[in-house]
């Protein structure tokens, strides 16, 4: 019996200690979860210092692979970062690095703390240098598009304008329909239709071709109406005088009427081209990588608003230069009106 008791007691002690160990380990783990939950609650209530002091209770234990320690310290670091206490933030990250020198999260964090501690303008300049190459590539594409459309759309617009004022009904009707269609629907929809819609009818375009086509048709329609207004604003006597010296209708148009519209057309056409610079941003939706798309990519990759600011500045630069150029052209086009 004594033997039996002795054995039982021995076994009981062993069992008990096992249970105890197991309970303790459960207890410990449970404890940390509890802490994280409490910390989350504190954060939810906006009390970041409270959350920090709760998280500090998590301690490092050798061989601990649950990640609770790293998790807590990084959380503290981020909270301190949010509270703008950079020293405390880097201290927390350093605690992690002390035990796991290669922890990439902590290393990245230290880098961004250093970044944060730099003067603002330095950060901005560094961001600029980082984003500019990509943005400039996009800007080159934007300018390419703008220049192409500036070359194409006045020609298209002139043809449409001449068609509209033609006395031959089928031609003027067709041009009316063209203008009605392209002015009456969103440019974005036109681009989508050309790039995503036409392939289902068996017509496929490269993004650049689709962009030129969409913008070109749309802007030709707008310029067509502007140019028509310009032509019709020229006094009727001009056409008669041209005819009276024996010019044909087309000679009169080319030599007398159309050259007189240049000055009148410059301001509204300038406006259209300023709008065009900004409208090219729409082609970013049909897989074109231009300025807007580049900025969007940078912004999404780095979540850094500097990319957007830079893009805005480049757009402003373009529109300013174009405004300036068009004012100059307008003055030159109207030189004969100066006494």
């Amino acid at each position, binding site marked *: 019996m004594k033997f039996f008791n002795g054995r039982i007691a021995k076994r009981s002690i062993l069992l008990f200690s096992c249970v105890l160990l197991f309970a303790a380990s459960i207890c410990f783990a449970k404890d940390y979860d509890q802490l994280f939950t409490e910390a989350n609650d504190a954060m939810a209530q906006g009390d970041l210092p409270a959350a920090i002091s709760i998280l500090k209770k998590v301690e490092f234990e050798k061989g601990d692979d649950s990640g609770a320690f790293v998790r807590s310290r990084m959380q503290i670091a981020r909270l301190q970062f949010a509270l703008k206490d950079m020293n405390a933030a880097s201290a927390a990250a350093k605690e992690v690095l002390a035990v796991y020198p290669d922890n990439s999260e902590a290393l990245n964090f230290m880098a961004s703390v250093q970044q944060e501690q730099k003067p603002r303008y330095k950060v901005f300049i560094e961001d600029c240098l980082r984003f500019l190459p990509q943005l400039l590539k996009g800007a080159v594409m934007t300018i390419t598009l703008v220049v192409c459309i500036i070359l194409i759309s006045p020609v298209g617009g002139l043809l449409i304008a001449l068609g509209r004022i033609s006395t031959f009904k089928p031609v003027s009707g067709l041009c009316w329909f063209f203008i009605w269609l392209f002015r009456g629907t969103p440019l974005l929809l036109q681009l989508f239709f050309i790039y995503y819609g036409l392939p289902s009818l068996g017509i496929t375009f490269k993004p650049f071709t689709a962009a030129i086509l969409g913008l070109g048709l749309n802007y030709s329609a707008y310029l067509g109406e502007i140019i028509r207004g310009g032509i019709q604003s020229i*006094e009727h*006597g001009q056409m*008669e005088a041209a005819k*009276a*010296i*024996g010019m044909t209708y087309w000679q009169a148009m080319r*030599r007398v009427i159309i050259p*007189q519209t240049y000055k009148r057309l410059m301001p509204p056409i300038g406006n259209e081209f300023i709008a065009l610079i900004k409208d090219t941003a729409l082609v970013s939706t049909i897989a074109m990588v231009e300025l807007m798309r580049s900025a969007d990519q940078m912004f999404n990759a780095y979540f850094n608003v500097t990319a957007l600011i830079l893009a805005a500045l480049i757009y402003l630069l373009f529109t300013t230069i174009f405004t300036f150029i068009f004012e100059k052209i307008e003055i030159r086009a109207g030189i004969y009106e100066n006494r």
Partner: protein
Amino acid sequence: MKTANQPLLSLKGITKQFGSLTAVNGVDLDVCPGEIVVIIGPSGSGKSTLLRSINFLEEIEEGTILFEGQEIGYVTSKHGRRHLDAPHKICALRSEIGMVFQHFNLFPHMTVLGNVMEGPLTVQKKSPQEAREIAIDMLAKVGLSDKRDVYPATLSGGQKQRVAIARALAMRPKLMLFDEPTSALDPELIGEVFDTIRDLGKEGMTMIIVTHQMGFAKEMADRVIFMEKGSFVAQGTPEDFFANQMEHDRIKSFLNRIL
């Protein structure tokens, strides 16, 4: 069969309607080479419409136009419908008939020289040098050689009209039409334009002139025509016209009004 006194221009039964309004009503007119015909008449009587019809700026409904004995400007289609001849033929005809407008209608975007060169250059396809020489001659003729390189906006009304005359002359027309060439001018500028027209007359240019300047009509015209409601009411030599036709009540009241 050209004869010496064959009319340069011959109008037979010219009728032009705007909707229900008959602007020119069966007008007959023969103009001999070198003749100066002055047409007067109240506003709306159809004087401009008649001149414009001669230059095909208006398409007439009835009547024929003969130029140097040839019927010109209209063809009859298979269906018996009459319409203007092909554009290039009309243009060729117009370049033989010069026209000067009340409001000059100079091309404002071209210099004075450019305005005068334009016809020879674009219509007659002359070389720039040739067109330039013609233009320089014509500008000398109207006394504006010094204004060659300015734009029309800088000219006085009288100078503008003289440039317009030079522009028409540069095409070497056989007939000149003037539609109230001095009506838009200040009184002191009328003289210079009439001096230019007078010089043309001395050179033997055939002209039809619509004007309200009776002094000019008396002095220059070979024939004065009074037009009213689309028809010629009376005509004669200036002496005859102003001495005898004054008995016409309507002419008398018209002349009293404008003199």
